């Protein structure tokens, strides 16, 4: 996703949404953005992910669903190596981003995290002004002119559908915004560093229904430009916004496929039980 002259609104019309229905994992090797190969993860010796293998398609929304503690958030955090901070975590297997192993010693973790942005469950704007929040990632890169930063901040806020609400008070504290606005600000902040992948960890679970709708709309708007990975508790949400859905249970990948297929014709009884609410999460 790039900012130069390509605002999301313009590209939305070009997005081809029609081909989704027929796709039974019908994306090629070249369309794979993230390739997870035999990934196992353990917290302090306790296994959290067990030998997962799945491919996440480029410029699509992939949802991870499953009961609490199934490992879906753990998997998400593995994708931008946030687990590196925890000394108790051990890992086996590999993750490839555009064919490159993200655990390669030549990969700078900070660069990886810039390319694979993340939005958390609770909105976490920094205690600074709205403008400074969005400019935070840009300033880390350094060497950008004041005007360039201004442009990118405006573009990012527009992309996150927040510009109209905050354009008059960019210098106000980010903490003065409502929860929904804060979450969109966090998305704008992440978009400002032009990531290729956006990880969303239950981004709407702390928000009211209207804010949730706005976030979902935003996800749809961003899809043509970004690979999105969404963790959610909300089955309807997964059905509404995602193209592919992976169902995880007890750290295992139970079923993975196009969202329509998974929700209408689940192959396994376990999946069906979960999505129809018979399995208590």
């Amino acid at each position, binding site marked *: 996703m790039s900012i130069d002259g390509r605002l999301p609104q313009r590209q939305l019309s070009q997005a081809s949404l029609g081909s989704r229905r027929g796709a039974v994992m019908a994306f090629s090797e070249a369309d794979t953005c993230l390739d997870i190969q035999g990934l196992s993860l353990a917290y302090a010796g306790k296994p959290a992910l067990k030998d997962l293998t799945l491919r996440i398609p480029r410029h699509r929304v992939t949802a991870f669903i499953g009961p609490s503690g199934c490992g879906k958030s753990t998997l998400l955090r593995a994708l931008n190596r946030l687990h590196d901070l925890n000394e108790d975590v051990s890992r086996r297997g590999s993750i490839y981003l555009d064919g490159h192993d993200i655990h390669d010693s030549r990969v700078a973790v900070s660069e990886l995290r810039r390319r694979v942005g993340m939005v958390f469950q609770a909105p976490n704007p920094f205690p600074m002004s709205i403008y400074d929040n969005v400019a935070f990632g840009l300033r880390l890169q350094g060497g950008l002119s004041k005007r360039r930063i201004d442009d990118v901040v405006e573009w990012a806020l527009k992309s996150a559908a927040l510009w109209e609400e905050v354009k008059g008070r960019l210098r106000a504290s980010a903490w003065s915004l409502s929860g929904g606005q804060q979450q969109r600000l966090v998305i704008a902040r*992440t978009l400002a560093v032009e990531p290729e992948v956006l990880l969303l960890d239950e981004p709407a679970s702390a928000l009211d229904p209207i804010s949730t709708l706005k976030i979902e709309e935003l996800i749809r708007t961003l899809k043509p430009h970004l690979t999105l990975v969404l963790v959610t508790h909300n089955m309807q949400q997964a059905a509404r916004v995602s193209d592919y859905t992976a169902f995880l249970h007890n750290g295992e990948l139970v079923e993975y496929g196009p969202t329509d297929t998974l929700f209408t014709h689940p192959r396994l009884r376990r999946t069906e039980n979960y999505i129809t609410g018979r399995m208590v999460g």
Partner: protein
Amino acid sequence: MKIPGHTAVGSKTLRRPHEGPWAWLAAASVALSVLMLGALIVLLSVKGLANFWPSTLHEVILDDGDTVIGVPFEQRTLPGGEGVERRYWIANRDDGGGIWRWLSVPRLASDQTPDDLVVLERRHWGTFFGRLVAVRLEGERLTGEAAWLAMEQRLKELDALRQARQQLTRDDILPLIRRMEREPSSSETQHRLDDRQLQALQARAKELRRLQQGGVLVLENSQGQRQEQPLEEVLDAWRPNAMAWYEKLGHWGGELWQFLSEGPRDANTAGGVWPAIFGTILMVLLMSVLVTPFGVLAAVYLNEVAHQGRLTRLVRIGVRNLAGVPSIVYGVFGLGVFVYGIGGSIDRWFFDSSLPSPTFGTGGLLWASLTLALLTLPVVIVATEEGLSRIPLHQREGALALGATRFETLTRVVLPMAMPAMLTGLILAVARAAGEVAPLMLVGVAKLAPQVPVDGEFPFLHLERKFMHLGYHIYDAAFHSSDVQAAMPLVYATALLLVVVILVLNLTAIFMRHYLRKRHGAPVRR
């Protein structure tokens, strides 16, 4: 708000009988604390500030004809009901006796407050109570009201001369002498030049001193005995009984200002405390500058960098326990390590020429500040660590997810957010350091150091000099002065001042914290 038809359900007060005692007990302890605090401030204010008020002079004649001029101080009933005694401050130490006198109240034949009674504040022998008979000035002898006016005029002149001379000494003579001492090996011509300049300056000082001389007061004490008083020894004179209330108020303000702005006199029992105020504030500021970076860095290491294992826990417990070590222990450490160890080495390396008289190898401002920084280090570390650990994980993760390194996360998100906690630590440190006296006695405080450690001479801030401190001044005046009773009002005033200074220092830090909190937004409650 009352709504018609509704009855109140909830109540904050405890109503049922068995709940009462706990509430009362809690309320009583709060009330007691507030009362004691209030009593302390009121006592200090009343006793301290009343000292500067020009109190009425009484002329008392006893039944045997003995006359006493003085200020009544306190009254007590003798044991066994044998009458009442009143204590008068009669001043006039040069009359041979003490400055206090107990008089039996029933023996007082008359008690008057004549307008012509005079109070003189003198450089030697303290205060004088009595009457002004005449002034001899430049061959003239003036009596009556003319004498008073001439004396007031001359006192103003003397004050100006005294200040001019002080300024000359402080700004010209002392710096020159210090420079000559520091550079004894400079060239012969330079040396001669300096010598000549010094002689010229000293001649000018002598001239100023000569101009102050001349002028004699003829005074009469309560017994009617005459005595002569050189006018240049008199610092101030007033007739309290003849003053209107607004004149008294003006006099009170003037005295208070002198107390705040001048150096001490008479072995610290009179005069002002300016060098002590300055020394206290400067030392606390220096300590803050020293302790903050150390404390913050240590807390960052313990909380952010170190592996959270047994060793880190042990270090943390150790740091917390250091806060409880008696301050005199730090004083001994400072004396041994800073003054003798480091200071002695500095002297050997850099000030070899002035040995054996020590430069840094003796107590001084730097070593006192360092010792206090060490003393308050645990407080800053603990407060900062608490602030750091309170910062939610998702704030750090937010920064990391944007591609910030751990260092960038620390400097751009974590530390700014922990700033209020650091300032809280600093506030606690200042509160503790400003009131410490015991360690300072070992590492640099002086009974008398009228020169403040900042002046116009390079390097402007003289870290090696000894300094005065309000806390030590209180101790010295209360226990080491020749007349503890006489010094008591000054002790109260100084104690009040110390409390005010600490309050001001703390308020500054609190306002800074408030400002930072506002700048970084109000904390979100989740």
